[in-house]
C-alpha cells in the first residue's frame, strides 16, 4: 500500500556563499541541510521528527511542503510526486497538506478576526458561499476545542491566550480537511497545563480521522506521548528510526542517547546519570 507521505533519499542543500561576488565567482560551498533522508508517514499515524537545532528537521518539513526544492530524491503524497503535479494536482496537494507553526503569537495575522483567520483558506480554495465558509469555520473551531465557536469568531488574536491562539492556528490548518498535518514544535511556546489539551487534540485527528501527522520537535517528552514512531535527525541524516517507546528505552545510536540524556528529569526518583 502506498503510504500517505513517502520521502525517498531526499536532499536539500543551501548555498553557504554569502554576498553577490561570492555567489557568482567564489567556490560553491553548500550546507547539506537534508542529506539523503527516507521516511514514510501513513494515514492515522503520528511520526516524530526529533533533533537539535540545525539538525535539518525543519528543512525536511519545509521540503515536504514544497518550500524548498530538492537537490535529489523524491517526495510523494498519496503516491504522487509533489514536484511533478499539474495545476489541479497542485491545488489538491496544497489542500491536503497543512502546517501548524510553533509560535501562535506570530502565525496569526493580528489584524484578522478569528473568523477571517480560519475562513481565509476556504476562500482561497474557491468556497464562494459565505454561509458555507462560516459553517465550516465554526465546525473547525469547535473541532479544535473552541466551543462555542460563536464566542470566538469576532475576536482578535491578541484577545486570546496562547493555548487558544494555537487552537485557532490548528482550526485554520484543519478547515480544509487535510490528510497530512505537519506540526513544527506546536506546543513549545505553550504553558504546560495547556500543552496536554493540544497534544490530545492532535492525537484525536490521527486516531479518529486518519490524518497523518509529522510532529517536528526536539522535545522527546511530548514525542513520547504523541508519536507512534520517531525518527532522530542529526546533521541532515536520520540516524535512528523506530517505535517511539523502543527508541526512548533502548536507543541504539549515540546521538539518540545524547538527546535523551540531555533531557532534565522531572521526577527526583529517576535521577539521570551524572555527566
Amino acid at each position: 500500500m502506498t503510504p500517505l507521505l513517502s520521502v525517498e533519499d531526499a536532499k536539500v542543500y543551501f548555498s553557504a556563499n554569502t554576498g553577490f561576488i561570492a555567489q557568482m565567482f567564489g567556490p560553491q560551498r553548500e550546507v547539506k541541510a537534508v542529506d539523503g533522508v527516507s521516511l514514510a508517514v501513513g494515514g492515522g499515524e503520528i511520526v516524530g521528527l526529533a533533533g537539535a537545532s540545525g539538525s535539518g528537521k525543519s528543512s525536511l518539513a519545509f521540503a515536504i511542503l514544497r518550500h524548498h526544492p530538492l537537490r535529489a530524491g523524491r517526495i510523494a503524497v498519496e503516491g504522487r510526486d509533489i514536484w511533478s503535479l499539474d495545476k489541479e494536482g497542485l491545488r489538491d496537494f496544497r489542500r491536503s497538506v497543512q502546517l501548524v507553526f510553533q509560535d501562535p503569537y506570530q502565525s496569526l495575522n493580528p489584524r484578522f478576526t478569528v473568523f477571517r483567520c480560519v475562513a481565509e483558506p476556504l476562500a482561497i480554495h474557491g468556497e464562494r458561499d459565505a454561509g458555507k465558509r462560516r459553517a465550516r469555520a465554526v465546525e473547525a473551531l469547535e473541532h479544535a476545542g473552541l466551543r462555542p465557536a460563536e464566542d470566538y469568531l469576532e475576536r482578535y488574536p491578541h484577545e486570546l491566550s496562547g493555548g487558544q491562539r494555537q487552537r485557532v492556528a490548528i482550526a485554520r490548518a484543519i478547515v480544509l480537511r487535510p490528510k497530512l498535518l505537519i506540526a513544527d514544535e506546536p506546543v513549545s511556546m505553550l504553558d504546560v497545563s495547556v500543552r496536554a489539551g493540544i497534544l490530545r487534540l492532535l492525537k484525536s485527528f490521527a486516531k479518529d480521522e486518519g490524518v497523518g501527522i509529522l510532529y517536528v520537535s526536539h522535545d522527546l517528552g511530548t514525542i513520547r506521548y504523541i508519536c507512534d514512531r520517531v525518527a532522530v535527525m542529526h546533521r541532515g541524516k536520520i540516524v535512528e528510526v523506530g517505535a517511539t517507546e523502543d527508541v526512548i528505552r533502548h536507543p541504539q545510536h549515540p546521538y539518540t542517547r545524547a538527546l535523551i540524556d540531555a533531557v532534565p528529569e522531572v521526577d527526583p526518583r529517576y535521577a539521570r546519570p551524572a555527566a
Partner: protein
Amino acid sequence: MPVLAVENLSVTYRTARGPVHAVDRVSFSLEGGDSLGLVGESGCGKTTIGKALLRILPEGAIGPKSRIVFEGQDLLSLGANEMRAIRGRRIGLIPQSAMNALDPVVRVSALIREAMAVHGLAGGRAAEERIKSLFAAVGLDPDRRAHYPHMFSGGMRQRATIALAFALEPTFLIADEPTTGLDVIVQDQVLKELAKLVRQRGTTFIIITHDIGVVAEHCRRVAVMYAGRVMEIGPTADVLVEPTHPYTMGLQNGFLGLRGAYREIVSIPGAPPSLSEIHPGCPFCDRCPFAEAVCRSEVPPLAEVAPGHFSACHFRDRAAALRAQSAEPETWGRRLA
C-alpha cells in the same frame, strides 16, 4: 540570618484597563548558598518577583507593606544610587531571552569591561584577563571575546550573558528562564556550566522557570506560584515527590519524563483567574477538582506540612489521598465538558 528575606511582597501594575495584581503577599527567604526555583505558568508573577528584587519595576508598583531585606539592608528604603550599587553588582541577573540581551553594536568584551568599570572593579589589562578567564569558565573560546553578539550562536550568547553576570561577582543571582529557546543538548550544557559556577563561588540563586525538570536538578528548594501567590514551597525532592497542593499535582501531570513508565498526559482544565481583583479565596479553586465551599470564601494560609515544606491548601492534611486521585485522568477530565 538569611541572605534574602522577602516579606509580604505585593506588586500591582497600573494599566489603562485598571490594576493588575501580579504578586500578592508573597514571603520567602534564602540562606547563604541556598537555591530556589520559582515555577509556574505565564502570568503567575514569577518574573515580577525577580524584577522586584532588583527594583526595576515602575514607581509605586510595590505594595506599601512589602519588605525585601538583602544582606541586612531593606532594599525598598534605599535611594536610587544605593540601589544602583547593588543591582548587577551584588544581585546579578541573567535575563529572560538572554539571546537578545546583548547590545548588538558593542563587542562582548567591551560590554563586560564597561559593566566592570561602572562598578569600579577591574580595568585595563586586569579586566582583559578576567574576561578571558570568565569566557573559559562558561565554555567560550577566550579568543572570541571581542566578537559581536551576532557572530555567536544562541547557546554562545547565553553563555556570554552568564559571563557578564559573573563578571561583577554577585553573591546573589537571579536567572530568569536562563535556557528558554535553546535546544535540549545546549540547554543541558549551559545549565551545567551555570551550576558549576554557582557551586564554585557559593552564589545564592533563584532560577525562574516553567520547566520543573530544570528545578528538579538544580535547585534545593522550589516555590510553586499561581496567580501571584505561592501555592507550595519546600525542599525540591519533597515537593515533587509528595506534592501537597492540587495545583502542583496538576502541573506535574502535564510533565512528560523520559525515564519513568509511559503515562497519560493530563492537563488542568480552565485558565488562570483574572488578576484585576484580589480573590476572596484560593485563586486555584475554579480549576481545582477538589475545591469545596471554603476554598471560594477563605484564603488558605501557607502552613507547614513537613519540616520546611509549606502548602496553601485547605485540605493539605488529606494530601496523600488527593495525590492518589490526582494521578487519575478522570479526576481532571470530569470538569472538562
